[in-house]
């Protein structure tokens, strides 16, 4: 009994780190621009497909294609911001929500159109197999993905705190008008942050593609969970998103194991509800 417990905790952490990475990009975009990017799950999907095609067409293993995916998604994010999202920034909040919906539907169906709805899998990535430590089986791709998530999150954290652009982003997050008055080009910060949010989820996509199946609608489930994670952690808080991601991973896995796998997502949502009833701004939100 206990050996399964440890295994399940480990697995919960592994999926949790992945959720955390996906959520960080989302919370960054929200924090800076006050936009909930409904297309976030689809950005993940694009990252996964990018990794898949680099592997299939050029034989580039997903681990090495991470820089390419990051750059690709960053550019995509910036372009989407410039040509679509920026136009509704001055409009009502509802319009902003709808725009990202439209982008989401457009991107996922563009994927269907270009790549068909078939399911793909990267069948022989460099990192595959399992490490066995005691009685616990550690999936190598998942473990590497988790490590990647931790490293990336640390990088983001340091970037925001230490670099000039990073500090400008934080300033814009905290008080937009004041940032403007201080001479920060908030438009550029917006577009950079959107790109960065997309790039982060692109990295997540590259990692995810090493062990999960890839298809145009894959963004759906991950996207919904990502929103829950971000809200649980507190919109705008990077640390909150990270912690909440891990928490959700653990709740999902342990809840599914000890209670009923059919209810595992319901349990996650219940935890979210209970948390915000007690603390309406999420764990670390402001």
């Amino acid at each position, binding site marked *: 009994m206990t050996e399964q417990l440890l295994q399940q905790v480990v697995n919960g952490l592994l999926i949790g780190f992945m959720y955390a990475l996906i959520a960080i990009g989302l919370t960054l975009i*929200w924090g800076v621009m006050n936009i*909930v990017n409904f297309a976030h799950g689809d950005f993940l999907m694009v990252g996964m497909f990018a990794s898949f095609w680099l592997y299939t067409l050029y034989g580039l293993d997903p681990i090495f294609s991470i820089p390419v995916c990051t750059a690709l998604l960053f550019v995509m994010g910036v372009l989407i911001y410039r040509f*679509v999202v920026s*136009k*509704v920034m001055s*409009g*009502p909040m*509802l*319009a*902003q*929500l*709808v*725009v990202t*919906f*439209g*982008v*989401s*539907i*457009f*991107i*996922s*169906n*563009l994927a*269907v*159109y270009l790549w068909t*709805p078939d399911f793909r899998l990267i069948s022989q990535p460099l990192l595959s197999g399992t490490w066995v430590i005691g009685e616990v089986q550690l999936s190598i791709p998942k473990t590497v993905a988790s490590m990647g998530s931790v490293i990336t999150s640390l990088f983001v954290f340091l970037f925001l705190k230490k670099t000039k652009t990073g500090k400008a982003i934080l300033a814009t997050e905290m008080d937009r008008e004041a940032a403007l008055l201080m001479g920060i080009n908030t438009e550029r910060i917006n577009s950079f942050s959107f790109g960065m949010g997309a790039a982060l989820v692109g990295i997540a996509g590259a990692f995810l593609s090493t062990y999960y199946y890839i298809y*145009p609608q894959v963004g759906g489930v991950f996207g*919904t969970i990502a*929103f*829950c994670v971000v*809200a649980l952690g507190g*919109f705008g808080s990077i640390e909150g998103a990270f912690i909440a991601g891990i928490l959700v991973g653990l709740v999902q896995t342990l809840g599914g194991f000890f209670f*009923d796998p*059919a*209810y595992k*997502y*319901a349990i996650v*949502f*219940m935890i*979210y*509800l209970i948390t*915000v*009833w007690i603390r*309406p*701004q*999420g764990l670390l939100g402001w």
Partner: protein
Amino acid sequence: MQKLTLKQICSGLIALIAVGIFPLLTTNTFAQHVMILFFMFGMMGVAWNIMGGYAGMFSFGQVAFFGIGAYTSSYLLITYQVTPWVGLIVGGLVAALVGAAIGYPCSNLRGHYFAIASIAFGEIVRTHFNNWKLIGAAEGLSLPMLNEGFKNFMFHSSKLPYYYIMLAFLIISLLVCYLISTSKVGYYLRAIKESHDVAKVLGINVVRYRLIAIMTSAFLTAMAGTFYAQYVLYIDPESVMLLPISIQIVLISMLGGAGSVMGPVVGAAILLPISEVTRVWLGHKGTGVDMLIYGFLITLISVYQPKGVWGLFANMGKRAK
């Protein structure tokens, strides 16, 4: 919102007459079906609007009320042979109660937190229904094919009764929305939307009015659910409790113009025909082009007409002066 002008009442009546005689002019049952869906989603959009557009509670979990309405009336019909009309009311009441039960603890949630909570709510309800053996769990409920007639709320030889019933429901919901928006309740709701804190300071019982909005919205949405069950004669959690339905309801209201009575109707009038027609035209090729167009249009409309399409109509009336 101001009281209606004579001009608006007239154009409303004209539209009503047009819609009323439409099914008599064409035997194309597909067109009738699209109109029925338009009415149904229009109604759910209006119901959403009461919560979202007026009170600022952006709910992405409306589908739970839809499903509760559908399941309640269907279960009562199948197990106890209760007529669907009674089932309709019971379903609405159950949905309203559930709405209040979930709305109460969520009453001090703002904006996006509320939205995510509503998604959570919808998903929890769906998961529960998917595993609840009493009401069929994942297998769903098949409604028996009773003799057609008003009493059984079931018609087989023609869609027209369905058409008019749904239209009537839509009109009822519009009336409810109008009454709310021009009454004290509506005034308070708008104040709450602007700022919870200011509203509280003004002495408005924020919780009470939020609950009223939620319960009304839930009741109306549940009515649409019962209608759906009687129309399609088969319901399961995958078809009456799925998140995309909630999202479609929100899209319709936002595109049409939240915060105005007719907004969601206009939104439904645009989105429903587009999604149905593009699917029929292009869906069978399997390339997803229909949804591409749909997504593109949504993006376009929200960029160039962010206040909602209804804004165009409203302005048209003003400009004409």
